[in-house]
């Protein structure tokens, strides 16, 4: 048997490889650098890595090819847009993560043990989070580019495993944080099992693991349709779990609440881009010709997800849980773009993912700032009167909420308009109606928070808004500016997406 050496297009793989390299350097720093200099050097390495990776991506952005890694990675316009969104969101999130207040000192210590108390007293600082973030980012970059099922699975695990750990790093409420991590891990492992099960069925159906091969079998109609259906169903379970679509959403409120807020923001925004990138690719590229098998089910899931997320969010009294349910509702809106199964649907989804991700990072950035003497305050009752204490922060948060609600002049409105019109154009009237109605429901709880912030009197319980560190300010300011700008003048970005976003087979 002869082995031919793999042919890799290193320029196209560079963004992923650079991030992996940065992560490895981070691991070395953890091992060898003195504790005192770790934080600053990790921060520097991480930001530099992400920026260089973004630069490398921009350099090769126009070179579409299926053969970046012997058919396992497809490098195309849509993929470039997903990767760029992920990198931008990651950079903004790193600024939030750099504010170390949120993280435990020694993640391995048992909650409440002497070891933990000692670590807190000696003012240790966790710095593992930087390489973990980079590993997760590398997985996310690969996920929407994968063009065979094994690579897709590897990327899925690569992005998930660091996130499970990062969810458990919260400084306060250690037990809740660890519970969140465990829950995320167990359910994630469960859904990975479904995913790999689906891979097996698709292989049984087509005798191939590449997207091209499976698509070819679907077009020929040569295989056993039962295998195809089971394969699509199981793979969809694995993917829908990652985006938190109902009925695979159960992890997200607990994980959003338990994880350190900066991590929640990163997870909510970047994971969504990566996972929807992969979903869009697999449905648009592989399953497109089998749409009558999956579209009715996915339509029902999208509608249930929108309505459920919006309705349950009304009952939430915790800002992070509320944002979790709101992100479930948004997953439903984004599924409308998948169902559209058209070029406008793809364009709209990419625009929506980008602006929603940015607004999400910004919103969680604001959440990190509202604190009392023992840490962040996420109980919504104690947010009342925030507008009186710090009008600027409250206004910015209101802007993000209005964007989530899809009010004109914010990016969320353009996103909603384009994604619903794409869905309706493809004939999904039910999606349009459900989307509009659940937007109305969702508007109710966003407005309730705005009322609380602006029209209720502050409760005197020591809740205050900390003066944001320089990096957090940058993140919130950029997010707010993008949210506003993309609501008022989105044409350049929309044109860019329209001319760039293509999937290749």
């Amino acid at each position, binding site marked *: 048997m002869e082995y031919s050496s793999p042919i890799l297009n290193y320029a196209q793989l560079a963004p992923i490889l650079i991030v992996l390299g940065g992560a490895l350097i981070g691991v070395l720093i953890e091992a060898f650098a003195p504790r005192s200099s770790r934080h600053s050097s990790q921060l520097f390495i991480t930001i530099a890595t992400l920026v260089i990776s973004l630069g490398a991506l921009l350099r090769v952005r126009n070179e579409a090819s299926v053969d970046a890694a012997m058919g396992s990675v497809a490098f195309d316009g849509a993929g470039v847009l997903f990767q760029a969104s992920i990198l931008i969101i990651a950079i903004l999130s790193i600024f939030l993560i750099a504010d170390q207040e949120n993280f435990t000192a020694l993640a391995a210590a048992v909650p409440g043990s002497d070891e933990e108390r000692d670590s807190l007293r000696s003012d240790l600082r966790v710095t593992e989070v930087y390489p973990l973030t980079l590993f997760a980012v590398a997985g996310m970059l690969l996920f929407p580019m994968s063009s065979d099922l094994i690579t897709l699975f590897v990327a899925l695990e690569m992005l998930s495993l660091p996130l499970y750990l990062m969810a458990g790093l919260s400084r306060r409420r250690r037990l809740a944080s660890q519970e969140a991590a465990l829950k995320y891990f167990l359910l994630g492992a469960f859904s990975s099992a479904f995913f790999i099960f689906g891979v097996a069925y698709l292989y049984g159906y087509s005798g191939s693991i590449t997207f091209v091969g499976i698509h070819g079998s679907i077009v020929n109609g040569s295989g056993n349709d039962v295998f195809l259906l089971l394969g699509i169903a199981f793979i969809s379970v694995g993917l829908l779990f990652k985006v938190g679509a109902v009925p695979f959403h159960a992890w997200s409120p607990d994980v959003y609440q338990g994880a350190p807020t900066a991590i929640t923001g990163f997870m909510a925004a970047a994971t969504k881009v990566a996972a929807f990138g992969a979903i869009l690719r697999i449905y648009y590229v592989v399953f497109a010709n089998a749409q009558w098998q999956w579209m009715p089910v996915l339509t029902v899931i999208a509608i249930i997800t929108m309505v459920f997320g919006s309705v349950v969010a009304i009952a939430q009294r915790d800002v992070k849980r509320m944002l979790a349910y709101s992100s479930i509702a948004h997953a439903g809106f984004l599924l409308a773009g998948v169902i559209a199964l058209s070029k406008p649907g793809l364009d709209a989804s990419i625009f929506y993912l980008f602006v929603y991700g940015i607004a999400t990072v910004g919103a969680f950035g604001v959440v990190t700032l509202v604190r009392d003497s023992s840490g962040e305050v996420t109980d919504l009752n104690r947010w009342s009167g925030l507008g009186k204490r710090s009008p600027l922060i409250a206004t910015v948060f209101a802007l993000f909420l*209005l964007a989530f*609600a899809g*009010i*004109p*002049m914010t990016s969320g*409105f*353009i996103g909603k*308009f*384009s994604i*619903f*019109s794409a869905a*309706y*154009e493809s004939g999904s009237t039910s999606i*349009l*109606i459900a989307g*509009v*109605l659940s*937007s*109305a429901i969702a*508007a*109710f709880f966003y*407005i*309730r928070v705005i*009322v609380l912030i*602006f*029209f*209720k009197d502050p409760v005197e319980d020591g809740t205050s808004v900390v003066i944001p560190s320089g990096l957090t300010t940058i993140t919130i300011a950029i997010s707010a500016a993008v949210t506003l700008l993309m609501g008022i*003048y*989105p*044409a350049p970005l*929309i*044109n860019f997406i*329209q001319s760039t976003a293509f999937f290749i087979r």
Partner: protein
Amino acid sequence: MNALTSMMLLPLLGSLLLAVIPTDQVLRIKQAALGTTLLVAISGVMAWFKFESSNTAFQFVQTVQWIPSFGINYAVGVDGLSLVLILMSVLLAPIVILAGWNESEGGRWSAKVFYILILLLETLMIGVFAATDVFLFYVFFEAMLIPVYFLIGGYGAAERAAAAVKFLIYSLFGGLLMLASIIGLYVISSDNGGPTFDISKLSEMHNFMSPTTQNLLFLGFFIAFAIKAPLWPLHTWLPDAASAATPGTSVLLLGVLDKVGTFGMIRFCLTLFPDASKTFTPVILTLAVISILYGAFLAIGARDIKRLIAYTSISHFGFITMGIFAMTTQGHSGATLYMFNHAFSTAALFLVAGWMISRRGSSKISDFGGLQRVTPIMAWSFFIAGMSSLALPGLSSFVSEFLVLVGTYTRYPVAAVIATFGIVLAALYILIPVQKALHGPTTPGNESLPDLNLREKIAIAPVIAVIVALGFYPSPLLNVINPASAHVIESQGFTDPLPTESAGK
């Protein structure tokens, strides 16, 4: 520069100017706000004189590409209908500021924020009437809610927060239904000659719709507008909002914002969906007649002077809606003139009522009495405003109410006859408070109320002048309105029914 665009930019620049004036220089802020609105009013009057009333096409047209890939333009222009409404808005703004000189104090936020919100609102008010692009209209329509929401919630009376939320939820719900219809229109237009939001191109689209589609799209628009110009049974937000807001905000709310609803019915419902409009006419006329009578009965029973005015407005909006859906030139001209007149008579009522309330410290009608002796000028102002509200011949509302009834009678005699009872009830709901508050023995506590001061006299004088002048000589307005109304009726495929006498011979 385009007359309309510059008219919209002026208040926007004014609000920026206000933003840089220090918060504690309240007088300077007020002067700047008043000066800005006066400038806008002057440019509005200048536009009025430049307008060619015989030309039924849009004038002062400006079109700039905004989001080309969706066919969205920044497109403005006016015909007789929108010009009258813009004139009404820009004339009311300085009056409201002058009349409510002190109402920004004691609010939740500073006077500066109040006037910034008012000026932003003025920009949006002009924009919403001037937009000839449906998407642009929608953006203004929704964006208007935000300043109004904060004006009600931040500066009003006791129940302001709840009233503001109720207002916002109702409006957002209607707005989202309209968004669904707009998406529907967009998709139909992109299937038939390329995506566009241009109102004149969209008015051809009804030829490509099935009756069901047209009916559904019509309802999306109509329900949104019926919430805005509150039509029974969608009116319940109005009394709460109008009685919780400051008098100035209420004037803008009832006088201008609600007119967007009736304006929208003519500009969008009738023009875009002529067949559906005919289908729904019987239902809408029934609702309009119910509104006329129901609003009047509620007004008769009202104990609170602000609620009373709000209820009378529900009755008046019933008349306007009836005039619009009577589908005759007279009905349309009457409805348009009614919109203008209602704004001024309601402004007079609300402003005087606001002065009465702030002097007495109570808004109950039973707390007043004998004001005619104590404060003759205030009492006479209220009396004239009231007479205008009940459409006394010689005052402006009479002309429009008469036109509406005549215009309706020629096609729908039954509706017109029943609606005429509204006039009888109007006499009751105005004369009862006039008798209780202005005449009779002076109620204890009222003996030393001060009469109107110079500022208040200057504010109310132009309003009363307009009411009286248009009562005797409405033709300057009608000359502009009539061609526009005839054009709408004609493009609907209607001919005015001839009076039966001459038709028989």
